[in-house]
C-alpha cells in the first residue's frame, strides 16, 4: 500500500504549549491509569484533561475546523435532532465508569473496562477530513488508537468477517432515545479488512482533550473515507461476526443509506447530489473527493466491487 505524505510535519504536529508544560502530569496519567479518559474523566472533568498524541503520516495538512465548530455542530440523534442539540443535551451523559462488551468470533470475549480496552496503545493524532452524508464536511484533529491494534488484543478468529458496533442505549441520559426516530441502539458495522485498515481509529479525544460527550465520548469510531454516520459514537459493544451486520441508517432507509457508504461523488443520495460539499466555515461548495480523498489508501479494498450497487 502506498502511503503518501510520510515525513512532512506541520504546525499541527507541534505540541500546544500548555500541554507541553504539563507533560509530566500527562505522562504520569498515562502510566498511572492507562489513559486520562479511561482513568475517570467524568463529564465535568472532561474539559480539563490534556491529551497528546503522536503525529501521524495519515494526517491531512488542511487547516482543522475550530473546536467550537467541531463541538457545536453535531449529528448525534441520541441527544436530539438539531445540530445544536447534542452540545446542549449531552452534558448529562455519564462516561465513567464505561465498559465495552466484546463478543462473537474471538478468543477473548468479555466485558472490559474502557481502560483495559485502550491500554497499551499510545495515542496518535489523526487530522482527518469528515464528510457528512448531508453534504457538509469538516477537518478534525482526532486523538485515538488504530482500531486494528485494539481489536487484535481480543484475538478474532477466521470466522470474523465483519465487526459490528453498538452505541450506548440509556434513554435516561440520552433524551433522543425516548422517541423511536431510529431503532435504538444505534448500530454500525465494517467488513473485517475495513476495521483493520490503518486509517480506521477508535478516537478518544480531539484538540488535545478527551472527547466532549456530543462528539461521542468516551470513545467513538472514525472511518474517514466513509460518510460520517458510519463513525459510530459512544461505543459499548464490539462484536466479531460472520454475516454483514445490520446498521441503524440502513435499517431506517435502506434505499438511501447502504452498508458500505463510502464517500462517492458519483453516486448521489436519492434526494440530493453528493458531487459537492460545504466545508464548514467556507462559503463556496467544494468538489467531493472519491473515498473522501483517501482513495490511494483504501480503493484497493473495493476492487471489482460495483460501487453504484454497493453504495
Amino acid at each position, binding site marked *: 500500500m502506498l502511503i503518501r505524505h510520510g515525513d512532512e510535519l506541520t504546525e499541527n504536529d507541534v505540541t500546544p504549549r500548555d500541554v507541553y508544560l504539563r507533560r509530566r502530569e500527562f505522562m504520569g496519567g498515562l502510566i498511572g491509569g492507562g489513559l486520562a479518559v479511561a482513568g475517570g474523566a467524568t463529564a465535568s472533568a472532561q474539559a480539563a484533561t490534556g491529551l497528546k498524541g503522536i503525529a501521524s503520516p495519515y494526517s491531512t495538512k488542511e487547516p482543522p*475546523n475550530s473546536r*467550537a*465548530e467541531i463541538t*457545536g*455542530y453535531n449529528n448525534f*440523534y441520541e441527544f436530539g*435532532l438539531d*445540530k*445544536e442539540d447534542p452540545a446542549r443535551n449531552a452534558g448529562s451523559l455519564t462516561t465513567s465508569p464505561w465498559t465495552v462488551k466484546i463478543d462473537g468470533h474471538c478468543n477473548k470475549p468479555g466485558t472490559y473496562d474502557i481502560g483495559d480496552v485502550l491500554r497499551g496503545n499510545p495515542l496518535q493524532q489523526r487530522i482527518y477530513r469528515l464528510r457528512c452524508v*448531508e453534504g*457538509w464536511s469538516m477537518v478534525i484533529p482526532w486523538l485515538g488508537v488504530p482500531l486494528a491494534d485494539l481489536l487484535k488484543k481480543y484475538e478474532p478468529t477466521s470466522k470474523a468477517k465483519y465487526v459490528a458496533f453498538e452505541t450506548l442505549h440509556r434513554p435516561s441520559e440520552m433524551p433522543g432515545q425516548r422517541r423511536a*426516530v*431510529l431503532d435504538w441502539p444505534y448500530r454500525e458495522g465494517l467488513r473485517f479488512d475495513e476495521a483493520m485498515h490503518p486509517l480506521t481509529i477508535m478516537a478518544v479525544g480531539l484538540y488535545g482533550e478527551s472527547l466532549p460527550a456530543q462528539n461521542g465520548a468516551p470513545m467513538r469510531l472514525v472511518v474517514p473515507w466513509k460518510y460520517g454516520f458510519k463513525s459510530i459514537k459512544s461505543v459499548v459493544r464490539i462484536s466479531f461476526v460472520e454475516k454483514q451486520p445490520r446498521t441503524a441508517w440502513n435499517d*431506517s*432507509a435502506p434505499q438511501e443509506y447502504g452498508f458500505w457508504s463510502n464517500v462517492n461523488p458519483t453516486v*448521489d443520495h436519492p*434526494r*440530493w*447530489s453528493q*458531487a*459537492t460539499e*460545504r466545508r*464548514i*466555515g467556507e*462559503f*463556496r*461548495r467544494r468538489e467531493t473527493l472519491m473515498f473522501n480523498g483517501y482513495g490511494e489508501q483504501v480503493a484497493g479494498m473495493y476492487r471489482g466491487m460495483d460501487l453504484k450497487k454497493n453504495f
Partner: protein
Amino acid sequence: MDRKALDRVVYAVVWLACLAPLLWLAWRGFSNELGANPIDKLIRELGVWGLRLLIVGLAITPLARILKQPRLIRFRRTIGLFAFTYVLLHLTNYVVTDQWFDWAAIGKDILKRPFITVGMAAFVLLVPLAATSTNWALRRLGPVRWRRLHRLTYLIVPLGVIHYYMLVKADLQPPLIYGAIVAVLLGWRSWAWARKRRAAGA
C-alpha cells in the same frame, strides 16, 4: 381610540409579527449565531417560515367565517405577500449562497430531486398570486377570475408540505403536523363548499 386608529394599530402588529422572524434571523446572522453552517440554517428557517405563513394565510378565511369576523380577510394579502417574500428569500439563498449560481447543478437538482421539483413547482405557482395581489390586478381580472386564480393556494400549500416532508432525514413529525393542519383547513373548505352546494340545490 377610534376605529381607524385601532385598525392601523392592528395592522402594524400583524405586519411586525410577519417581519419578526426575518429580523430575528438577520440579527442572529449578523451576530454570528446561526451555528457552524449558517447557510444551511438560513435556508431551512426561511423555508419553514414561508410555509408557516402560507398556512396562516390559508387559515384566515375559515377563521373569519367561524368567528364571524369578516374584517380578518384584510390581513390575507399582507400575510400572503410575506409568505411569498420568505419563500423567495429561501429560493434565493439556495441559488446564491448555497449553489453560487451553479445553474447546471440547480437544473439537475430540479429535474432529478423530487423534493426540489415539488418546491420549485410551488414557487412557480406562487408567482402569479404575488403578481396579482394589487388592487389594480384585482380590478383588472375581475373578482371571479381573481378568486379562481388564487385558489391555486389549495395546491401550493400542500406542495410546500410535501417538499418539506420529502427532505426530512428521519423525523417526520414536523412536516406531518403541518400536513395535518393543512388537511383540516382544506377539509373545512370542502365541507363548507359541499354544504353550500347542498343548500343551493335544496
